[in-house]
């Protein structure tokens, strides 16, 4: 079993901009909701050019580390290792690359090309915050969030330091809707740290078989219709928002399960939220 504390949370979905909105379940009507968050960490020119995935990833990561640092926790963003998890990366960039290569490969944009690497968000985060520790970017198909969670918690356990996990996905454009019919813009981020009793706890074990289940069952009342692959994080976010004990089974792939237990703080001084 691997244990950690949750020191910070960030979340963004259309109509649910930020963890406070998520926690309260107050959705902004679609008509007035922003289509993507603003990555305030980036310089203005790059903020505008940044692809959706980079924007949402940096925005939720910023929210999570801000929360983690707001309660007297010693979380130095410059020495915080990072795990970025996304099933597809930036689909609009992939669509652009494929379409350009089919029409005029010599006109390919160098900026769009370097935006296409899966670790683009990790790179921009490191540049924007001065973070010089390890940064990884992973994918695991439909099990991307669960594997990202596992990798982040394994890093907390083996490095004995806080670790930032960022999970995000972007909507498909053009012909790619065939490959990723369910993707929506969504991101969430967590700062995990070695376990302490004052914070919400998380404990995971890896077991056989691919099971998906949430105990206690609850209606996914906060963002029920969000179809992004990384939105598997929804059940975890809901459990954190409710502030009570919960167990979530995530398929880690075709043959393994990540059993995730969320434990409310043992002490009264609840730090999350």
């Amino acid at each position, binding site marked *: 079993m*691997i244990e950690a504390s949750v020191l910070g949370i960030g979340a963004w979905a259309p109509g649910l901009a930020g963890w406070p909105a998520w926690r309260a379940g107050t959705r902004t009507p679609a008509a007035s909701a922003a289509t993507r968050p603003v990555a305030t960490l980036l310089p203005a020119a790059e903020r505008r050019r940044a692809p959706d995935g980079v924007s949402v990833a940096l925005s939720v990561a910023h929210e999570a580390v801000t929360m983690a640092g707001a309660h007297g926790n010693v979380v130095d963003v410059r020495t915080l*290792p990072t795990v970025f998890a996304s*099933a*597809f*990366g930036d689909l609009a960039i*992939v669509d652009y*690359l*494929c*379409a350009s*290569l*089919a029409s005029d*490969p*010599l006109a*390919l*944009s*160098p900026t769009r*090309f370097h935006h*296409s*690497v*899966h*670790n*683009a968000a*990790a*790179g*921009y985060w*490191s*540049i924007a*915050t*001065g*973070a*010089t*520790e*390890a*940064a*990884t*970017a*992973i*994918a*695991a*198909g439909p099990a*991307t969030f669960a*594997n990202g969670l*596992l*990798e982040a918690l*394994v890093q907390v*356990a*083996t*490095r*004995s330091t806080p670790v930032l996990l960022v999970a995000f996905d972007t909507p498909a454009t053009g*012909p*790619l809707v*065939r*490959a990723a019919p369910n993707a929506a813009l969504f991101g969430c981020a967590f700062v995990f740290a070695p376990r302490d009793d004052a914070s919400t706890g998380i404990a995971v074990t*890896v077991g*056989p078989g691919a099971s998906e289940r949430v105990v206690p069952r609850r209606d996914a009342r906060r963002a029920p219709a969000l179809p992004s692959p990384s939105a598997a994080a929804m059940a975890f976010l809901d459990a954190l928002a409710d502030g009570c004990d919960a167990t979530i089974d995530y398929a*880690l*792939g*075709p*043959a*393994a399960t990540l059993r995730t237990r969320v434990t409310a703080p043992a002490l009264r001084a609840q730090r999350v939220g």
Partner: protein
Amino acid sequence: MSAPPLAITATTTTTATGAGNAALLDALRTRTSGLRVDTFAERATGVALDTWSGEVEGLDTPLPESWAAFDCRSNRLAWDALHRDGFADAVRASVARHGPARIALLLGTSTSTFAASEAAYRDATTLDELANPRLHHLHATTDFVQRVLGLEGPCMTVSTACSSSAKVFGQAARLIAAGLVDAAVVGGVDTLTASTLFGFRSLGLVSRDLCRPFDARRDGLNIGEAAGFALLERPDLRDDVPLLVGHGESSDAHHMSAPHPDGRGARQAIDAALRSASLAPSSVDYINLHGTATRQNDAVEACAVRALFPATTRASSTKGWTGHTLGAAGIVEAVVTLIAMREGIAFGTVNSEAGDPSCGPQILFEHESRSVGIALSNAFAFGGNNCVLAFARDADAWRRARRP
């Protein structure tokens, strides 16, 4: 961070130098480059690219019928490497020892099955191929390999561009140290794609000529394709097997597509790898460098090597043989490093003759026969993503080199 060493009990590679480690060793020994004048770009897009590339021969044969849904260049390349060097058999034996759920699969790639997605876009009639759920996402080839090997443990794709399949070694060490698995298959697969050929060209990083790592005349890289795998297990220290004794990771925090001018991130990763292996720089016999043959990378890397290591350390880039295999570079060069230790050869640099002024005495152009007990392999990537691996030829070599 310090993790216990891991035994590397099997390895395999398929690169432009041929299929299997023996072909790679033969090409290295005889200084025979696998690079050819590129024809892939024109075949993929109809537009020729004036460069050389490291294309693997024999990838025109489809996968066996039972794997038809998975058939694509990337999975054919992975399939080829899995069936060389007795690798699949070694994994089968490991499954028998540990059980399929106790073996992780961690593969690096920058493009996975992307060449198939590019091909689907070329004609309106083939766009529906994008609906095949077995392809067209970054984890597709890793998922295929997991099914082929029958593994059931944690299974992830690491995609940090050119450091991807170096970072999987560190990830495996962590998963084993945390007690979640007993062994891990690590590796990387990246094919030639139009996006990487034309994308690196758009950044002005592709040479029209053969790439010349660390040569004063170098003017860019050649892209290659490759697949490689390694089986990592807890060591029985009586065994005469090579060991992963440390790894170091860092971020430049400087620029998306250019290295930090002082090599800050590179040095940090080298320091971290040495520290985690309890090694001093003076104990390093050989370093397989990232050495892409771009102006910037090689100058920065040569300066870092000159500053950190004594004149007795030997260092070279072997990308003149294979091309820059991007997400597969980490595994290919880890295997080259293991071969250097086993054979007692510090490899030189093919295609290069006149060293850049930034090169110290460490940079080798000709092969040198010498005992290689401790070696490093460097991988530096877009986004300033760095990873350095530390290997020992065997437990004895590590014991002798370790700091008390």
